């Protein structure tokens, strides 16, 4: 109690500032991807063949840091368990396919990916945004039967308060992976390329 009385107001403000700075030092890892009902039932009922998932890596020429982490107002946001973001995208795809009963490591059809864009902009006091893009290829043996770059962009209302804006940015950023993959699953060219009857 005595200690409290001795603390002048500016020091209290310093506490608040310090707490904010300390909170900002924590590295946050993106949580595990969760398949949605729409994704699972959509993939299951799509009629595509079961797929293997091959290599996912950073696109040639892209900055290596892009695959390792992004930042929300100074808070580092990393992929889980020392992965890269391209590996995170690969694992999200496998999770979706497994949940829909469409994952087969022995399948002649294999999906490959290259991360071409990965951005999180959370510094704005009124809006924030994220961009995620990847080149997806479906290989049947040595032949590419699907080859497209898909891009997912989103902006959302942000807050000047970091305690609100940072978690919100992390949630929106993580959701971009599901949204990018949803674009892939909905692409009629992808579905056609993955058709069991396509030769």
């Amino acid at each position, binding site marked *: 109690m005595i*200690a*409290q009385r*001795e*603390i002048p107001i500016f*020091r*209290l403000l*310093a*506490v608040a500032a*310090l*707490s904010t700075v300390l909170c900002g030092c924590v590295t*946050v890892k*993106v*949580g*595990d*991807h*969760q*398949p*949605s*009902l729409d994704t*699972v*039932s959509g993939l*299951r*009922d799509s009629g595509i063949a079961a797929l293997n998932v091959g290599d996912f890596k950073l696109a040639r020429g892209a900055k290596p840091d892009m695959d390792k982490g992004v930042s929300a107002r100074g808070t580092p946001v990393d992929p889980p368990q020392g992965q890269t973001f391209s590996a995170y995208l690969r694992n999200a795809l496998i999770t979706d396919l*497994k*949940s*829909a*009963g469409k994952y087969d490591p022995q399948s002649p059809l294999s999906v490959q990916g290259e991360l071409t864009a990965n951005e999180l902009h959370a510094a704005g006091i009124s809006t924030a945004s994220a961009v995620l893009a990847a080149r997806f290829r479906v290989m049947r043996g040595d032949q590419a039967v699907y080859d497209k770059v898909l891009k997912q962009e989103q902006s*959302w209302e942000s*807050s000047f*308060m970091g305690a*609100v804006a940072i*978690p*919100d940015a*992390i*949630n*929106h950023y*993580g*959701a971009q992976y*599901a949204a990018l993959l949803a674009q892939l699953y909905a692409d009629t060219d992808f579905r056609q390329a993955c058709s069991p009857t396509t030769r």
Partner: protein
Amino acid sequence: MRNTYRSGRTLIRTALSLLCLSVLTVMLSGCVTLYVDNGVPDTAAADFHRPQTPQPVQLLFSFQTKGVANARATDLLKDQVKETVMNSGLFSAVSVDPAAGGAILSVTIDNEPITSQQDAMAKGFGTGLTFGLVGSQVTDGYICTVDYVGAPGSARIEKVVHHAIHATVGAHAAPANSTKAPDGKTAAKTMARQAVGAALKQLGDDPAFGH
């Protein structure tokens, strides 16, 4: 010698300041008390209307914050949700993998603040200025949506339950019709257990659900 004395005093003063700051930070963070609304009580095992032959189901769970997937909160609550689904007895087995027969149960809990962000900030600011002497209360709403698809291509059955967690800051009376939670984790798990249980009760009572 004098410099050593001065630097020693500075060090002690800095250490005391940091200690005070730590104590204050802990005290301030300890001022928040959470209460789970009593509007959605636990559903007793005997109250579930179980099908004659329960089928296995694939469970999908997502926690959302204002409609956006919150992966870290999902990780925190997924075991609680799975346990609640298993304990309901509506299904013979619960797994994240596709189930024989193709039944899918999707559980989504969406956190929609009932007290607006501006209002919550204003209240919190007011409480902070008075060092907690003037308390405040904010409420977070949770919309639990349970979707069930019995087999590929079959119609979706949807049940929705609304729940709430109240938070008081500083000197504020406990909200009416609510139960104090020892910590945030317990409050969240209690809310999830009660909301999912209530939605599953509605699902079991639906004639379209496997009876």
